[in-house]
């Protein structure tokens, strides 16, 4: 069982709770294809990323229908082999635009924020693409060829969009807080700000997203709506249109509630269902969306009047009712639909257009109210309940009908434009209601309200991490530990290393070192030859370069070879036992008392061993190996492997296999600030 711990705690300011870890070796990516084109000329992309493997071509974001077919049609933002960033576009194999930095992005210990803002309609070429890094507009480019004015990119077009991939070139590292804004060229101040000390930090984006915009917070939250039953609402076999039952509302306090809903906050859409009226009660509500105060106290409903006419009711400071031309009757199934877009709204009865208004429901677009959506009755006393049966209710984020149509008579299937789908085909009197729309939950879920969900590939629950721009976790450091025979092979966001050259020493440190405090981390070994394994700390002032660091001073290692402690290059005589494949070695470093303890699968094997007196500065977690193909998986609190139990430290940070010793903490920036 995989246990995912809670989000980072809030300590003031905007907090990013999660990121997504991409491993290029797994071909991990996210993909989405819009149904229709948005604004291909004017848009903004904002994301934070932390690098894993360096020195290879890696795509952060790309869009286009073809690549590698001798007819490239692609727009992309990618990292180059030389670690520069390039914003690049080709149309029919011809280069449309190229903006390549002189700056290299090879600081793998912290997070970058980039904003890429397009406006190809701008009369000034240099304003058609703007790149901002950590809040500052980039001005130094090795190549700066802007597109011709008004050129359409493939971003926001009805073609595949990929995060991390296009024909290979997978991203390796972490991505967080991915905002894509369709239709606006924005500034970094929409996504970040400078704190009191001059550090660029993230802030919540509060604007609208446009048609194909999206927001990925990688929270892994489900987008299926929870449906709560109020009163006697239930499934009933008394009437049924599609399936064995329909939903019964008796008109007296019965309703279905969908909390935290943005269902009616899209810039176009359709709401529809089958309804069987038991009685025509004036003002009885098929649905009611309560006020969005941020948008000017707007609200809406769909009501049935005493005369059988159906009204799409909208309040925007004044009432605007769109009333159907025809009336419906009791005792028969009728299909009702309301569609809306920028041009206005329409009401349909049994697939026949019954009224048009140039006042749209878009007054509620992107309201961000997260209000509870009600079916069958509003909540206040003044609302009137619906006395009817309802079946096969669907809400969509697109206009489904533009001309008269034949209503569906069989169960609908969800698609990428379906934002709510309630079937009723179950046992009589059942009160279990489920939303059959959307994805069950995954790291590509769009949280913008647009339901532009990205489909994950080779990305699982363990790839959703709490290593974020607001709580940076330690990893292996690929920038250190170089010797003439090469380096480790790094993967999984630098939480995994493999010795790839037999009979040569490898050493690497971590991206964080500590002078104070108590710290805990775990290492799992599950491949290769289990010999010549050294795990411990070294004084960060002592170089890891060169070979044979296991004989160096200012070091202390647990030496798997014989189960000894090796201090300043000399083994102790004690034998603390050896590890076996699959074991997890726990390390508890006490810099306050200059001691270190080791655990094998949670059992102490070395307790409070005094650190070398030669470790006088920062102690850095350190890993050595001579063994062939041995794999180290480090867990500083953001594991790339499954955790069966799930243990965090006393501050709620980290996710460890075994209990964190009392008073010890995960090696992350929030803890480092407090104790390090």
């Amino acid at each position, binding site marked *: 069982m995989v246990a995912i711990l809670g989000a980072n705690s809030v300590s003031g300011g905007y907090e990013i709770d999660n990121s997504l870890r991409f491993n290029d070796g797994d071909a991990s990516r996210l993909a989405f294809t819009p149904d229709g084109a948005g604004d291909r000329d004017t848009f903004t992309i904002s994301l934070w990323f932390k690098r894993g493997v360096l020195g290879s071509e890696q795509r952060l974001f790309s869009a286009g229908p073809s690549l590698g077919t001798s007819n490239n049609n692609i727009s992309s933002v990618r990292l180059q082999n030389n670690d520069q960033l390039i914003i690049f576009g080709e149309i029919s194999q011809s280069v449309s635009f190229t903006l390549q930095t002189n700056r290299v992005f090879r600081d793998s210990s*912290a997070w970058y924020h980039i904003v890429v803002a397009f406006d190809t309609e701008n009369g000034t070429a240099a304003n058609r693409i703007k790149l901002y890094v950590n809040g500052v507009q980039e001005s130094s480019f090795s190549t700066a060829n802007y597109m011709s004015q008004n050129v359409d990119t493939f971003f926001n077009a009805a073609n595949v969009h990929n995060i991390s991939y296009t024909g290979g070139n997978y991203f390796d590292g972490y991505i967080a807080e991915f905002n894509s804004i369709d239709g606006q060229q924005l500034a970094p101040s929409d996504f970040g700000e400078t704190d009191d000390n001059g550090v660029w930090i993230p802030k919540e984006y509060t604007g609208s997203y446009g048609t194909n915009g999206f927001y990925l917070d990688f929270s892994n939250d489900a987008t299926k709506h929870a449906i709560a039953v109020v009163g006697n609402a239930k499934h009933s076999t008394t009437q049924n249109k599609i399936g064995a039952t329909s939903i019964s509302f008796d008109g007296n306090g019965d309703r279905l509630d969908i909390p935290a809903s943005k269902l009616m906050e899209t810039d176009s859409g359709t709401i529809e269902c089958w309804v069987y009226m038991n009685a025509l009660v004036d003002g009885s509500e098929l649905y009611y969306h309560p006020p969005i105060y941020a948008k000017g106290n707007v609200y809406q409903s769909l009501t049935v009047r005493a005369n059988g006419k159906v009204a799409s009711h909208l309040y925007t400071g004044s009432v605007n009712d769109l009333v159907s031309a025809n009336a419906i009757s009791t005792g028969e199934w009728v299909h009702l639909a309301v569609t809306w877009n920028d041009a206005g709204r329409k009401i349909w009865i049994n697939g026949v257009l019954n009224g048009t208004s140039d006042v749209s429901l878009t007054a509620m677009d992107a309201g961000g109210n997260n209000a509870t959506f009600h079916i069958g009755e509003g909540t206040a006393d003044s609302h009137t309940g619906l006395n009817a049966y309802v079946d096969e209710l669907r809400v969509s984020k697109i206009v489904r009908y533009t001309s008269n149509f034949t209503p569906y008579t069989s169960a609908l299937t969800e698609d990428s434009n379906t934002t709510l789908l309630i079937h009723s085909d179950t046992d009589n009197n059942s009160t279990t209601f489920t939303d059959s729309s959307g994805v069950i939950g995954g790291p590509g879920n769009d949280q913008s309200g647009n339901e532009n969900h990205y489909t994950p590939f080779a990305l699982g629950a363990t790839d959703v991490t709490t290593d974020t721009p607001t709580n940076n976790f330690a990893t292996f450091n690929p920038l*250190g530990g170089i010797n003439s025979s090469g380096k480790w092979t790094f993967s999984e966001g630098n939480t995994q290393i493999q010795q790839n050259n037999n009979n040569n020493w490898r050493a690497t440190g971590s991206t964080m070192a500590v002078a104070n405090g108590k710290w805990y981390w775990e290492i799992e070994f599950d491949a290769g030859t289990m010999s010549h394994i050294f795990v411990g700390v070294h004084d960060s002032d002592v170089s890891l370069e060169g070979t044979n660091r296991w004989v160096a001073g200012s070091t202390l290692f647990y030496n798997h070879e014989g189960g000894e402690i090796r201090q300043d290059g000399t083994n102790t005589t004690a034998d603390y036992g050896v590890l076996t494949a699959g074991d997890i070695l726990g390390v508890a470093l006490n810099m306050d008392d200059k001691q270190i303890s080791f655990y094998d699968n949670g059992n102490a094997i070395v307790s409070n061993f005094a650190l070398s007196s030669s470790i006088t500065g920062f102690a850095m977690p350190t890993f050595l190996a001579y063994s062939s193909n041995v794999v180290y998986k480090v867990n500083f609190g953001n594991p790339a492997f499954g955790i069966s139990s799930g243990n965090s430290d006393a501050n709620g940070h980290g996710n460890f296999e075994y209990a964190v010793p009392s008073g010890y903490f995960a090696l992350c920036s929030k803890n480092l600030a407090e104790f390090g």
Partner: protein
Amino acid sequence: MAYTDIDDPSKHFQSVIWTGNGASDTRTISFDGNSDMQPDWVWHKQRNDTYGNHVFDSSRGFGANKELITRGNFVEGDTSNFNTGANGYVSAAASDGFVVKKGTNSSNGNRYINESNDTHVAWCWKANGGTTTTNDASSTSVGTIDSVIQANTEAGFSIVTYTGNATDNAQFAHGLGATPEWILIKNRDTNVDWTMGHTDFMGSSAENIRWNGSSAVASADSAAGSHFSRNAPSSTVVTLGNGAGGDFSTDTNQADAHVAYCFRSVQGYSKIGTYVGNGNADGTFIYTGFKIAWLITRKSTGNNWIIMDNKVSPNNPSSIYARSDTAEAEGTSGLDIDMLSNGFKIRTTSAAANSNNVKYYFMAFAEHPFVSSKGVPTTAR
């Protein structure tokens, strides 16, 4: 305890770059850092030409002919070689920068520091706003010779002036409140070399290096290496030379006026240390625990000094460098270093920064700590 006591390094150190405008008299050069800072030590270098490496401080006083030259052994205000009174100088500190003033030379009065279209950089540290304290050694029993101290104990920097007494093991109080790890000393009255002491060798058998030269660390057994005592500095005093060469009076303790600039490492803000080169373009990584704003390195076995900062080189690779020991304009290639969120990484095989198995000395200051005391991590660079 909190990771750092200095969340905003711009309160204590800032770099600034400017292009000369040929002002008719004075011009205020303003910092662009997060906080306003009135500097007490201003080290100026012309970037596109040979002038500069002039050092001014508020203890000795800013003004005409108050400069010390890092690339030579010249006395303070040397008018025969570098007449700042005629060619331009730092005339005063400002509340968030400093003032440069045209010299008296009617045709070249801005030559050193504000000639039109010339480019300049200054690296500036805050001590104590120009306010000094005097240590009367005979009264306090701290040290053996009197010193005038302007210290910023929070940021680990002090400016000390003293008059030498040509006596073995003379000591002056430095005011840091902790042991200095990097000391620069200059005789103000006599043309002798700058002396640099580093925690790696002060008190051992190799005792100083020239700030104005490219030679190797000099042994204490030589005349050139005897300017610091074999007794390492303490948390209160610096002990001057009694080396076997018996040359104590040459550079640090003649009966002349001297100035000493003393530094210690402060977690999250500054780091003084060493690294060993690997001779590989995928070079050594050095952990500092902060994002680098300014870096100086020097090969122990002899080479030129290298200085890089985040204003001249705002992005990686940092490839533009200055030298403190030569007159040359800034270099622009062949010495790539990545300045990172938690340290720096050598990206060159140049012997000036990365000979295999050779030790290098460095001192670095922060743009931001790796994480602030409030838990805000710095961004990647």
